[in-house]
């Protein structure tokens, strides 16, 4: 069936700094609530962009809009220079990969087959697919349980398998919604190192994070969202100021430079 239609063409390789996705004055409604109220962000190749902000600020909604999941009520979302609505599903699948907040599976596929699903948009040879799948599983440290059914895994293991599937898709724009939420310390670091690796290889990575320390350490740029708007956008050293974070999170915080690296450390002010 597929071969009868015209094959979607993969995008040309992006140069560092190319804009792979952007929003302009984006407004998104979910039901009656306006979740995004005029958001401008730019996602560039070679860069890890962290979306941070309090619960309900619109981080996942912005990610959904960049993924072309959610329609814009006003404003525009452009993916690879074209409005998000101008792409077909197979074309988008070659351009962006999305890690959902929680990974579910209706049937107990083994881990390796789940990761292989990430190859669906491509027409590579089985051998090439095997290589990409094995590489993605090794990078996320899930090779050891490749043959186990997905439903028998723990939450953290599932999250890594889902990430492996997203990596296997080999899309130049990676959109990750809280990839570290279910992970232990070691694997949180692993996942963000992977984000940096992808960015170094020329991909654009957008990652929703709650841990400001992780965002400060790994993201090239941080967009701080507050009530559907971007409160600040820039390197973490500029965005993470005590006054701004305290106001946005409605919680007094202290920002200290890390004694060794100098990266900002954000700590809630505790008077115990």
């Amino acid at each position, binding site marked *: 069936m597929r071969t009868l239609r015209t094959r979607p063409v993969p995008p040309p390789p992006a140069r560092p700094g190319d804009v792979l996705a952007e929003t302009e004055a984006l407004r998104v409604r979910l039901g009656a609530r306006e979740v995004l109220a005029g958001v401008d962000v730019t996602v560039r190749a070679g860069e890890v962009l962290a979306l941070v902000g309090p619960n309900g600020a619109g981080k996942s909604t912005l990610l959904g809009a960049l993924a072309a*999941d959610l329609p814009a009520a006003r404003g525009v979302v452009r993916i690879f220079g074209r409005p998000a609505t101008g792409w077909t599903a197979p074309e*988008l*699948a070659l351009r962006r990969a*999305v890690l959902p907040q929680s990974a579910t599976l209706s*049937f107990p596929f083994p881990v390796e*087959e789940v990761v292989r*699903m*990430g190859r669906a948009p491509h027409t590579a040879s089985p051998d090439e697919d095997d290589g990409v799948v094995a590489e993605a599983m090794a990078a996320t440290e899930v090779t050891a349980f490749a043959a186990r*059914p997905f439903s028998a895994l723990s939450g953290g293991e599932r999250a890594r398998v889902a990430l492996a599937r997203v990596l296997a898709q080999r899309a130049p724009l990676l959109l990750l919604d809280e990839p570290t939420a279910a992970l232990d310390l070691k694997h949180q670091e692993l996942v963000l190192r992977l984000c940096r690796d992808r960015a170094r290889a020329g991909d654009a990575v957008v990652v929703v994070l709650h841990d400001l320390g992780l965002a400060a350490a790994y993201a090239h740029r941080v967009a701080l969202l507050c009530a559907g708007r971007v409160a600040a956008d820039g390197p973490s050293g500029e965005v993470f100021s005590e006054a701004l974070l305290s106001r946005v999170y409605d919680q007094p915080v202290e920002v200290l430079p890390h004694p060794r690296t100098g990266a900002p450390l954000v700590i809630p002010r505790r008077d115990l």
Partner: protein
Amino acid sequence: MTALDDKPVRSAQASPAPAGRKRRGTPWLLTGGLVLGLLALVPVAAGLGAYPVPTGDVLSSVLHRIGLGGAALDRVPDSVLWNVRFPRIVLALLVGASLGCAGALMQGVFGNPLAEPGVIGVSSGAAVGAVAAIAFGFGFLGTWTVPAFAFVAGLGTVLLVYAMARSGGRTEVVTLILTGIAVNAFAGALIGLFLFFADSAAVSQITFWQLGSLSQATWPKVLAVLPCAVLGLALAPLYSRRLDLLALGERPARHLGVDVERLRIVLVLVIALLTAAAVSVAGIIGFVGLVVPHLLRMLAGPGHRFLVPGSALLGALVLLGADLAARTVAAPAELPLGVLTALVGSPFFFWLLRRTRRRQGGWA
């Protein structure tokens, strides 16, 4: 979401290194086994019955008819074989394949291992259309009248159940089952109403048909359902890969390039075609669409590339065997086929419930 089996294949767990490799052979073995089983059972089923025909005579008569030697039979056994047994066998194969395949597709579309034409009420919906056609004596489409009515009513029911049981891109088991109960009750009431208005000849025809049976099989009936069944069975395997991706959920499937809306519409049409084909000739035959895909998923994993065609093969085999039992166990009397499949299928359903409870605390 609900995942049925925690551990579908134990051997795969014992050998982690060649991931999945070991299991890749299983579907081929099973396919071969199923085809051999069908090839063996068809001549046996053709020979057994109130008027036994030796299996050798059956084969020789088939060879004679297709012009490869063999020998013609006497008039009576020839008529028994070609006018009674063979249409019935072909019908059993078509109905069984349709039900098995429809079950596998429906579970894939709903992402829910309990979806089955009988359980969620699509069979009774199709039955309403068929009963209406019989009760009011409609015949403007010739032999295709009953299948056409069954298709339209079945299609309406699938769409209704889909719209009612889904929210936010997923189907909860409880909602699905409750929707099925409501649809079954309403369809039962409509059938009762049509029975009330029908004349006594139509009533006996409907009552017998409702129990599920293939005893009225004739070649014209085979021809009447053949287009529906063949079209549905031919289209279904084309969507296997996309059904696999749909197991991730609607949005992730879309992220991987699946046009989910179109996939859903096409598959709902295919399910309605297959269910209508089965119901319009054989009445409501439950549990085949539930049991068959479950068995295969346990044996060969949940991949739809094998599951969809495999369910059609095993469905055909199961229904052929069940029909053979239905007409020989209590000979010369004949058990209703639907009663027989329910007798065997319900305990399996029980076992499935207990197994799932033990492993993951039931379906949430």
